[in-house]
């Protein structure tokens, strides 16, 4: 496990893009961990929310683009409201997803959704809005 | 003076405890700002009579800036609040007379904020440069009174 920083993360374009889309200063995170400990989905994630911020602060966007975490976040805002420095983590997760989705990437395939009849419309609408471009 | 570069005159009233100290710090830190700023030290922002601000504009300044301690931090307990009220009145009066009230600026700059001091001076000078010269000083009817 080794990561070589080749460039000041503050100058990284993709980090800047994430800051721009989310409107959050990702550098204000001080790694208290409260987002992760309160996250109802954390146990299913491969990168914990607090680690997401450390990766960003180190400029390692690639790891995040390949991680499951942004796609597991349920945008429940538990972390957002509890973050001591007021970071909207849900928006940052969305920004990371957006980097992918804006390349016309489908995370879910609507045709492969099971039990479409019984799912409430809001479930499908919200899922597709979050996971398709 | 069609194409001549406009160099504004900005008189700065800086309170002794915060903004003067910030100006000292900006100097010590070798932070540069335009020579348009013409500073004077006063004991407290509250000591600045609205007359001083108007007088400066009358006598040729394109703008004035009043620097005080941050709210709640005043060395004289509440002087900066008084200054804030006075500046508000000056601005209202200027505006109602048809003058540009943005030529009076009140800023809170604490003694530790040297960089902020320099930044405010730079930004405000740029701003005034864009606004152009003040028309207030050309008002003959408001010519300066004699002082003894």
């Amino acid at each position, binding site marked *: 496990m080794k990561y070589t920083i080749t460039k000041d993360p503050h100058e990284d374009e993709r980090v800047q893009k994430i800051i*721009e*889309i*989310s*409107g959050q200063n990702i550098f204000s995170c001080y790694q208290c961990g409260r987002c992760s400990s309160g996250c*109802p*989905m954390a*146990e*299913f994630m491969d990168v914990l929310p607090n680690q997401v911020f450390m990766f960003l602060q180190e400029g390692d966007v690639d790891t995040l683009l390949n991680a499951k975490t942004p796609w*597991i976040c*349920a*945008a*429940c*805002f*538990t972390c*957002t*409201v509890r973050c001591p420095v007021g970071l*909207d983590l*849900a*928006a940052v997760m*969305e*920004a990371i997803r*957006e980097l992918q989705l804006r390349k016309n990437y489908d995370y*879910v395939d609507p045709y492969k*959704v*099971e039990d479409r009849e*019984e*799912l*409430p*419309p*809001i*479930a*499908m*609408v*919200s*899922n597709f*809005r*979050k*996971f398709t471009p | 003076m069609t194409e001549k570069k406009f160099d504004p005159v900005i008189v700065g009233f800086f309170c002794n405890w915060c903004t003067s100290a910030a100006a000292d710090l900006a100097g010590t830190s070798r932070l540069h700002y335009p020579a348009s700023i013409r500073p004077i030290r006063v004991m407290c922002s509250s000591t600045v009579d609205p007359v001083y601000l108007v007088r400066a504009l009358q006598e040729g300044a394109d703008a004035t800036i009043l620097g005080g301690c941050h709210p709640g931090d005043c060395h004289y307990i509440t002087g900066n609040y008084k200054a804030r009220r006075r500046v508000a009145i000056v601005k209202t009066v200027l505006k109602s007379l048809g003058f540009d009230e943005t030529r009076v600026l009140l800023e809170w700059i604490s003694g530790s904020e040297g960089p902020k001091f320099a930044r405010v001076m730079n930004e405000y000078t740029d701003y005034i440069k864009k606004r152009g010269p003040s028309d207030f000083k050309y008002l003959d009817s408001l010519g300066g009174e004699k002082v003894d």
Partner: protein
Amino acid sequence: MGKKVMFYPGCTLKGVAKNLEDSTVESARVLGYDLVELPGWTCCGAVYGLAQDSVKFTIANVRNLIKAQNFGKEIGDNRLLAVCSMCYNNLKRAHIDVMKNRDKLKTLDLFMDEEANYEGNINVMHYLQFLKNDVGMDKVAEMVKKPLKGLKVAPYYGCLLLRPDEVAIDDREDPHILEELFEILGAEVVDYPLKNECCGSYHTVDKKEIVGERTYKLVSVAKGMGADVIATSCPLCFFNLDKRQEIAKQKHSEFEHMPIVYFTQLMAIAFGLTSQDVLHFDKHYISPEEVLQKWL
């Protein structure tokens, strides 16, 4: 005829959550209010967009608000009620968003050149807020015919009634509005510590195992606290907690089922409205009929 108030049902109430719609409208009728469906409402979008550079999630909601603005003038009331947590959250956030961000509103107004501009005076309310602030819990108490004495209810708020802060209808960490309501309905309220935790939300579409795990945890803890039912206001929470018990049971053999109800169904029952035309127990995966038998 009761007093008319605008009602935004949302798509889900028109289908799988008929039980929520009818129990809401009928319970309001008992309290002297006619919930009139907002004419021509469109989908709220279910989730609010978080990207700063996008307005696409706001358009539909502002359009709904404009419709409410027009219809509100007709009936002389500016309150727009929603009972689905997602609808409430979206409409309210859109309202706050464009009020805070006038440039965004201007862009939207320009975009929707057919409609009138949004003036910003629509009061988006969740039905619970309406009960507490406008109807008054005293009035609710007055209408209770069959107190739900002995029924142990775990109130479940989920996320969208409480978060983010600007739309919260109550204290986000320790809300009490449902508790207050259920006590007035005569039920025994369980101190349910997970009442504001997420159910897994839209992951129910493509990651139902995860939602099954959430349901397992949320229902087991409620069971452990002695609850007979979990009561919620969100059709998605309802679906997840109800239907996904199937998966929870497959994964955890010791799991015990528990019926999930809408808070409005409990209101209806306490008000003596026990017809299936109002309650629609056929919409439940785990039927609450047995637990509620005493009051039906």
